[in-house]
């Protein structure tokens, strides 16, 4: 503790922290048959003319019609629908989405989809409200504020999210990640107004989720829970969330993948993902962001591949870090970080996900560019063990 006080850069993995910050301002409702109440609930958050953001896959499932009916049932209007969000949304898509919302005369955004859809809606809402372009939104706590940029952040238009995957947690987070196709990197935008005002978790919204997507997004949630617990930016509030999320993932992820008709497992995974999410992550995300941006590796798949390797790497960084992995291992009835890493790797295999980067199109000659991306990713600074360029090269080679 004394060391932490003397050196603000020193790692502190236990005790009373010199500083931490915790916020979650999203009102969350979870349960069955909630889609029909979308309008009733969103009205409470100030919405009147809703702009619905989704993708074409979701459009084909019948979910959009059910949500539309829920909006009308609450007496609200649907100003328009934007269903042009790709798997990895881009700054161009966000700009187009914001423009369409303006043309439609919308006053609020409703995201119905996975992480890409929700992040598109969040950033489009910021562009819609404050102007500028998606690219200009990049940054941490940089949205317009009172008191010459130092006061309370200005609100954006009411935003609600109905996640159709159980993993990203974007429906209750203050962050969004969007691809910049020119720079071939993912830009991160984080500020308090990006917390959606409302999240609706209804297992009906994940009923048609293909098992491999349920598996990959579930591993994304698991990675959030693990990294949130071992990050240097850990805090007791997130500890409680991470550990409970891991219990729920332990009990529900494989059930939800193997038996998609299991509403309870799917509902619990939605809840687990919303509990697991944090912006305090680490090297797994630092490695996965460039893998997605450069080689199109789906985020959950990249996390699933990298997680066991980063657990081993971090646990060798000190007993204090290993202790944190030991806590996680106990939830799975395991003894120590090595057993946890093995367990995660076996779980990824059981879920039918790729276990190596080479299986998802990453060539060995791509490693230097991945290393560069990982070093520049903000989550690198939050990893409990400092990772050098050489360390990342080794980790990518192990994952190849």
């Amino acid at each position, binding site marked *: 503790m004394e060391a932490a006080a003397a*050196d*603000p*850069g020193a790692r502190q993995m236990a005790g009373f922290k*010199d*500083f931490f*910050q915790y916020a979650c301002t999203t009102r969350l409702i979870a349960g069955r048959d909630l889609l029909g109440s979308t309008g009733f609930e969103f009205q409470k958050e100030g919405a009147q003319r809703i702009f619905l953001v989704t993708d074409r896959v979701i459009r084909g499932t019948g979910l959009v019609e059910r949500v539309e009916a829920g909006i009308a049932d609450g007496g609200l209007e649907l100003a328009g629908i934007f269903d042009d969000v790709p798997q990895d949304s881009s700054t161009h898509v966000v700009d187009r989405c914001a423009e369409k919302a303006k043309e439609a005369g919308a006053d609020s955004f409703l995201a119905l989809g996975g992480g890409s859809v929700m992040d598109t809606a969040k950033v489009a809402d910021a562009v819609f409200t404050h102007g500028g372009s998606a690219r200009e939104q*990049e*940054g*941490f*706590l*940089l949205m317009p504020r009172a008191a010459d*940029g*130092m006061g309370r952040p200005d609100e954006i238009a009411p935003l609600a999210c109905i996640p159709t995957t159980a993993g990203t947690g974007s429906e209750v987070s203050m962050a969004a990640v969007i691809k910049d196709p020119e*720079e071939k*990197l993912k*830009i*991160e935008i984080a500020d308090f107004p990006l917390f959606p005002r409302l999240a609706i978790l209804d297992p009906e919204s994940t009923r048609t989720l293909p098992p491999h997507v349920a598996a990959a997004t579930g591993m994304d949630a698991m990675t959030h829970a693990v990294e949130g617990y071992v990050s*240097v*930016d850990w805090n007791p509030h997130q500890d409680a969330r991470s550990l409970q999320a891991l219990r729920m993932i332990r009990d529900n992820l494989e059930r939800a993948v193997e038996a998609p008709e299991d509403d309870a497992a799917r509902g619990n995974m939605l809840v687990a993902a919303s509990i697991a999410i944090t912006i305090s992550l680490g090297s797994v995300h630092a490695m996965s962001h460039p893998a997605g941006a450069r080689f199109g590796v789906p985020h959950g798949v990249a996390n699933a591949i990298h997680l066991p390797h980063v657990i081993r790497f971090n646990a060798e960084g000190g007993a204090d870090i290993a202790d944190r992995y030991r806590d996680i291992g106990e939830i799975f009835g395991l003894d120590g970080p090595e057993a946890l890493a093995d367990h995660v790797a076996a779980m990824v295999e059981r879920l039918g996900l790729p276990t190596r980067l080479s299986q998802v199109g990453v060539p060995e000659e791509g490693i230097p560019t991945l290393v*560069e*991306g990982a*070093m*520049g*990713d*903000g989550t*690198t*600074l*939050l990893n409990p063990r*400092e990772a*050098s360029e050489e360390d990342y090269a080794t980790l990518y080679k192990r994952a190849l």
Partner: protein
Amino acid sequence: MPYFKDADEVYRYIGKLFEDLAVDDELAPKFRKANTIVQYRYRDPESIITVKLIEGEDGTVDCGDTSMEPEVVMSMEADTAHKFWLGKVNVTVALARGQMKAKGPVAKILKLVPLVKPVFPRYRRLLEEADRKDLLEAA
């Protein structure tokens, strides 16, 4: 009361540190890997330092007015910058609290954070050589 009495003092110490780093045989090539132009905008006192970190080019540091177009802009109080170079600021906490704000392709600058540790003693030495015990003790 701010540590530095005016912009000239900021440039004399923090600006000088950047100038020294720009010609350092060991560190300059590593920093230039950022391949960007960073502008540091300080408050209390108002002061601006712009640094060119472009691979294969000489490092350039402008204190005050500049013709360089920054790609990344870092904003903070000059006191925070002073404490940072003394090794007394946790960057992730400063960013989380909004004490430091970064605008632009932040990734380019974040990868430099692990490289700055060897610079802390240099800044301390620079202040010692200038007999600015007050600045060393104030932070």
